[in-house]
């Protein structure tokens, strides 16, 4: 009875002693020795040296000793595979034992020994045990199939164990069914495509029957499996729901949560007009509330899940606010989660109570909790307009407490309240200003500065206040610096007379003394704006800001839907899809809610449409090109490739047969051509950080302006087209176009966040393409992109990236990454962005080249509906770097001889025949790489017609 003594042997020579004891003749002594070995193993000592001695004890009648030896075997067999073989005989023999407990023990243990040679011997006993007369053996064997599959999946398939396992789903014993379901579900996870579980109405019915009879754990396995099924219509969904609802009264919280998962998922298919739908909603609330009287760890799991449920179907718990009130003795993790849910449930009806609670919480001890409570008060103000005034006065009370972190947090949220209700609560500014000195956190300082700048006209000493921040400008964080810059510019625009000096000072600090490109760029933009057109500056800087949205931290809908399918699991605790924390292929199959079926309102909301795709089938954005896609996936989304093409070999491999003779020229044997394009424009699109929404939108106007100017000298710019619809990219919509201005190519992008989540950490990368287009600078999205916000970015491109011929030639595959995921799309770029500025050929040269290029390389095209005269056409083309070398008039037709050069040095010669009065003209192109002709022709057409 006093086994603890085994833990205390720490003598030297212990192993040697144990060895002697293990080989003792006395049974008792042997057993004692094995216990000592296990105790040493537990605390982490290496006792593998005793392997043969321990295994020798295996042949025994004493079941307890046998179990101990097995335990040892499971631990060390892998390190001593050859010795482990010694054990096989005993296992095989035990599998024939008349005692079912011993048969099961043998098959259970054998599956845990991960040694190939043992696995071979396992197959026969396992086959027998799967058909054993005793249910205890069968249920153990069912799990063993999953173990074996983990060691050697192929073997399990070859031996036909999967079919036997499927048969066990119809077993008469509920526990066997449950274990078979668990094993099959796990195996199916690693073969997402196979239809292993083969759920159909008949098998579902069997599962539902077993559900009533098996242990609590078995019920969980079955419910989790049911959740993967998609009923064929709403009637089937309803009948399953009806049979699952009794589980909501189970004492085991996991059974309840798994039942909730099934119901939440299948509810999606039910029409809201159905009476049953309402009944079900009502049935869901009480068990969820009951989960909150469980032990704290389970409460935590439940609260994380309720957080999801409240976002998906707020109606379920809308009357249950009180149960989420924080108790003084709740563990901190429970408190924080409850607070989160309280805010989500806050409404006009209960706001008074909620506020009273929040105020109470704001005086607690835990700093994180207090901060969150203060923030929650701000969120309530934004969410429930009627309460805003009360919230503001509560916040003011809290500021009076002078507790440093409370004050700072309060100021951050008051800024948001100002954003939501402009010109309403400015009376509090004076109080805020009193606390200026105590602010030491960047976020609070930035918020305060924003307030001062925004309301500069009402704060008498705004200039003094801002000036005081200016002293330590370089020690401030970027957030504060940017805010300070903007605030002082605002102040200057409002009170230009007194603050000229201040604005000069901040502009020079930002532009000359700072290493931060964002700050510098913003500084320059303001400087230029102010110096060229103060009126425009006013319009830009003091533009009216869009109101901030009510719900700021909702989970993005597609992710939410996915997480609903994972209720009860770790994914729902982390609020992340399993792929974010599970290694390898397991469990990364995307799950989605079933679509509403045809019998109910079919096209209820467009959002549900995409989730209707069969699970696991993600829309392919890029045409499947096998390993090509692989290349793109492997691209490093860090800084762009700036060096020369790295993968020359693959270029040749890809190009030899495709490009034939044109290879040399395409590869750029005229380096100066490439050199010409090497100039990389500095990133001009410094979108200001922080309060991005207002300023960002103001600035985008500014950019429109510059690009408008640009079109006069640059080549034709097509209007932006949607490249990546939001549906395919978890809410990120990308549209864009390509431009070429004074020698530099850029990709003008417009990123719109149509999700509910803030997007950050943008990066872009191109796949190898025909002309080596690559980003010349990282994708600069400075501020997090908040929901419904759009940002315009001009991404400078270089043509020194890796080259690979694409089909079509001007195909560009792009990967864009953000904090949510990586998205892929492909687009076609117009060839004229590649026409370089020095593409004008000397006349003699032109003649010689024209003759030199074989006639079979000549291609002829008709450009219809283009009623331009030669002059107009020529000048139009010139602006896109197609140069007229010579002009002739032959038989009333104008002949334009033109040349252009691509970034990789390929020359294209053209003859354009224009007949006055005839809207069509004829274009003959000659080029050493004839495959570009088609695209040059398209470029001609676009340029001439626009």
């Amino acid at each position: 009875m006093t086994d603890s003594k085994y833990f205390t042997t720490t003598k030297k020579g212990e192993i040697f002693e144990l060895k002697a004891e293990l080989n003792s003749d006395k049974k008792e002594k042997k057993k004692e020795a094995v216990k000592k070995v296990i105790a040493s193993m537990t605390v982490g000592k290496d006792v593998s040296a005793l392997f043969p001695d321990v295994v020798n004890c295996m042949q025994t009648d004493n079941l307890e000793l046998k179990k101990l030896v097995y335990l040892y075997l499971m631990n060390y067999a892998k390190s001593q595979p050859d010795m482990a073989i010694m054990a096989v005989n005993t296992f095989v023999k035990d599998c024939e034992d008349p005692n079912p407990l011993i048969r099961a023990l043998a098959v259970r243990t054998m599956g845990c020994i991960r040694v190939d040679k043992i696995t071979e011997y396992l197959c026969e006993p396992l086959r027998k045990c799967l058909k054993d007369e005793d249910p205890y053996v069968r249920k153990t064997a069912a799990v063993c199939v999953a173990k074996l599959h983990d060691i050697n999946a192929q073997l399990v398939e070859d031996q036909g164990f999967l079919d036997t396992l499927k048969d066990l789903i119809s077993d008469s014993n509920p526990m066997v069914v449950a274990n078979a379901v668990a094993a099959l579900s796990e195996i199916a996870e690693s073969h997402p495509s196979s239809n292993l579980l083969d759920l159909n109405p008949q098998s579902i019915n069997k599962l539902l029957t077993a559900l009533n009879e098996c242990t609590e754990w078995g019920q969980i396995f079955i419910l989790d499996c049911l959740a993967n099924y998609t009923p064929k219509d709403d009637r089937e969904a309803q009948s399953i729901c009806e049979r699952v609802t009794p589980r909501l009264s189970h004492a085991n919280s996991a059974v309840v949560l798994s039942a909730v998962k099934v119901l939440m998922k299948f509810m999606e298919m039910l029409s809201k007009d159905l009476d049953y739908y309402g009944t079900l909603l009502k049935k869901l609330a009480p068990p969820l509330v009951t989960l909150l009287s469980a032990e704290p760890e389970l409460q935590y799991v439940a609260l994380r899940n309720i957080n999801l449920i409240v976002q998906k179907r707020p109606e379920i718990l809308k009357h249950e606010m009180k149960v989420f009130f924080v108790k003084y003795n709740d563990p901190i993790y429970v408190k924080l989660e409850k607070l989160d849910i309280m805010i989500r449930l806050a409404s006009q009806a209960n706001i008074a109570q909620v506020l009273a609670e929040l105020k109470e919480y704001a005086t607690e001890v835990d700093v994180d909790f207090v901060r969150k409570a203060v923030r929650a008060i701000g969120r309530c103000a934004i969410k429930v307009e009627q309460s805003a005034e009360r919230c503001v006065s509560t916040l003011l009370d809290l500021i009076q407490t002078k507790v440093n972190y409370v004050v700072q947090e309060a100021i951050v949220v008051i800024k948001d309240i100002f954003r939501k209700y402009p010109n309403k609560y400015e009376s509090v500014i004076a109080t805020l200003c009193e606390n200026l000195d105590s602010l030491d956190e960047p976020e609070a300082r930035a918020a305060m500065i924003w307030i001062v700048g925004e309301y500069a006209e009402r704060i008498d000493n705004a200039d003094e206040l801002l000036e005081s921040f200016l002293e330590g400008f370089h020690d401030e964080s970027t957030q504060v610096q940017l805010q300070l810059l903007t605030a002082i510019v605002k102040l200057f625009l409002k009170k230009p007379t007194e603050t000229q000096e201040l604005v000069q000072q901040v502009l020079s600090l930002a532009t000359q003394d700072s290493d931060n490109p964002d700050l510098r760029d913003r500084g320059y933009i303001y400087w230029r704006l102010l110096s060229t057109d103060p009126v425009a500056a006013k319009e830009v800087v003091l533009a009216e800001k869009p109101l901030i949205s009510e719900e700021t931290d909702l989970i993005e809908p597609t992710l939410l839907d996915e997480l609903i399918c994972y209720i009860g699991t770790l994914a729902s605790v982390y609020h992340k899809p399993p792929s974010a924390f599970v290694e390898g292929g397991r469990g990364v199959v995307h799950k989605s809610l079933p679509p509403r079926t045809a019998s109910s309102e079919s096209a209820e909301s467009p959002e549900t449409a995409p989730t209707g795709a069969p699970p696991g089938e993600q829309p392919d954005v890029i045409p499947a090109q096998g390993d090509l896609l692989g290349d793109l996936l492997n691209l490093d989304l860090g800084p762009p490739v700036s060096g020369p093409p790295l993968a020359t070999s693959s270029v040749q491999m890809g190009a030899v047969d495709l490009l034939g003779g044109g290879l040399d020229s395409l590869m750029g044997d005229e380096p100066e051509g490439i050199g010409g394009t090497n100039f990389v424009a500095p990133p001009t699109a410094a979108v200001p950080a922080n309060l991005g929404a207002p300023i960002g939108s103001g600035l985008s106007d500014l950019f429109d302006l510059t690009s408008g100017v640009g079109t006069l000298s640059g080549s034709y710019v097509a209007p932006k087209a949607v490249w990546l619809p939001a549906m395919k990219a978890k809410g990120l919509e990308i549209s864009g176009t390509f431009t070429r201005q004074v020698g530099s190519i850029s990709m003008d992008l417009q990123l719109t966040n149509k999700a509910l989540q803030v997007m950050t950490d943008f990066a872009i990368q191109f796949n190898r393409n025909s002309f080596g287009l690559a980003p010349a600078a990282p994708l600069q999205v400075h501020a997090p992109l908040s929901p419904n916000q759009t940002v315009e970015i001009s991404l400078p491109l270089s043509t020194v990236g890796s080259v690979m011929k694409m089909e079509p030639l001007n195909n560009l595959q792009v990967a864009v990454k953000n904090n949510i995921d990586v998205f892929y799309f492909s687009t076609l770029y117009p060839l004229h962005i590649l026409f370089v500025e020095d593409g004008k050929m000397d006349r003699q040269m032109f003649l010689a080249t024209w003759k030199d290029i074989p006639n079979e390389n000549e291609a002829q095209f008709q450009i219809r509906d283009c009623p331009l005269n030669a002059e107009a056409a020529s000048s139009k083309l010139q602006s896109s770097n197609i140069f007229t070398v010579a002009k002739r008039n032959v038989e009333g037709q104008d002949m334009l001889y033109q040349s252009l050069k691509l970034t990789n040095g390929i020359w294209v010669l053209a003859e354009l025949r224009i007949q006055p009065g005839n809207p069509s003209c004829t274009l003959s192109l000659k080029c050493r790489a004839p495959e570009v002709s088609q695209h040059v022709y398209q470029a001609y057409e676009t340029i001439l017609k626009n």
Partner: protein
Amino acid sequence: MIGGLFIYNHKGEVLISRVYRDDIGRNAVDAFRVNVIHARQQVRSPVTNIARTSFFHVKRSNIWLAAVTKQNVNAAMVFEFLYKMCDVMAAYFGKISEENIKNNFVLIYELLDEILDFGYPQNSETGALKTFITQQGIKSRHQTKEEQSQITSQVTGQIGWRREGIKYRRNELFLDVLESVNLLMSPQGQVLSAHVSGRVVMKSYLSGMPECKFGMNDKIVIEKQGKGTADETSKSGKQSIAVDDCTFHQCVRLSKFDSERSISFIPPDGEFELMRYRTTKDIILPFRVIPLVREVGRTKLEVKVVIKSNFKPSLLAQKIEVRIPTPLNTSGVQVICMKGKAKYKASENAIVWKIKRMAGMKESQISAEIELLPTNDKKKWARPPISMNFEVPFAPSGLKVRYLKVFEPKLNYSDHDVIKWVRYIGRSGIYETRC
């Protein structure tokens, strides 16, 4: 599924370590110790993710139980399993302590082998487990074939919680209705939230495989019956209660409860928790606390607390304890109370006022003067709520057991022969009044 299960003492030394899955290595044992047990900061979550490995933990006194996984497991199930594991251990060797775990480590390994297979929880009913795993080692030699198959069919069977062939000379059962009443009250006496969470615990010593049916004054049932016969509604004018939600032991037929709201089951032998329930309406709050806190200058607080008992004068409440928090900078306290004993406990920052017994509809009062040390701490005292503990001999929810019928068709004893005992105990849960 669960990849491994570790038990540590308070120092972080491993007492039990069982790995079920190949993806969990020995380093997981250390990762948890370093990142959670030895972490400087207070634990912020019962689920921790360290290097793509998730750790679930619960603590029992100073023992840590941790389950480890690398997969997207059912988190609720893992915690339920850990609790169950604690129950099973407690049922075998009592309190979960380092000493007991070390003394029983062989047994624990055996249990872990039985109740968790490849990380899947298996039958964990102590009743069933005890038939073949005992502290004295395994009874294997002396079993007959019938006994063995009886064990296996019980472990895997539909009624896994009860074995056949149980015999008692005296058929007896005990029902305990245990309620904990929770309250959060504002200083002005407004009820912010109140609920009762109750449990019906049954101890049964019945022969054979008895069918039981349990009835209580559930509003839904009473109203349903009322519809049938009009006179009965007038007759059973007694109170019924609205149960917000209830959950049952796995022996209760849930589908039957869902359709007919009747609670029928074959009970496990001995003690078990038949049901848990929660009510929020018409709760009898046994005590009312009326606080009065006055700050006299910066260095003195005057506190007066009145408690009123609010139940039948014939009943007696017991073990009454009122805990009045005091500020951290308290230097001295003077207390006067009319009844019981009151003491200032500096280590707990509270005045603890204890009264042994108090009848219903009575009132008692305590007043205290608290001297404070002057501080320049800007932060105000958070004023934690005044909490109360007590025990009363009735169910604050108003729940009444109407019947518990026992049928055993095979053996010759009837419902009348069973001796039944019913007891109601109401205890304070979190019973707080803000001040």
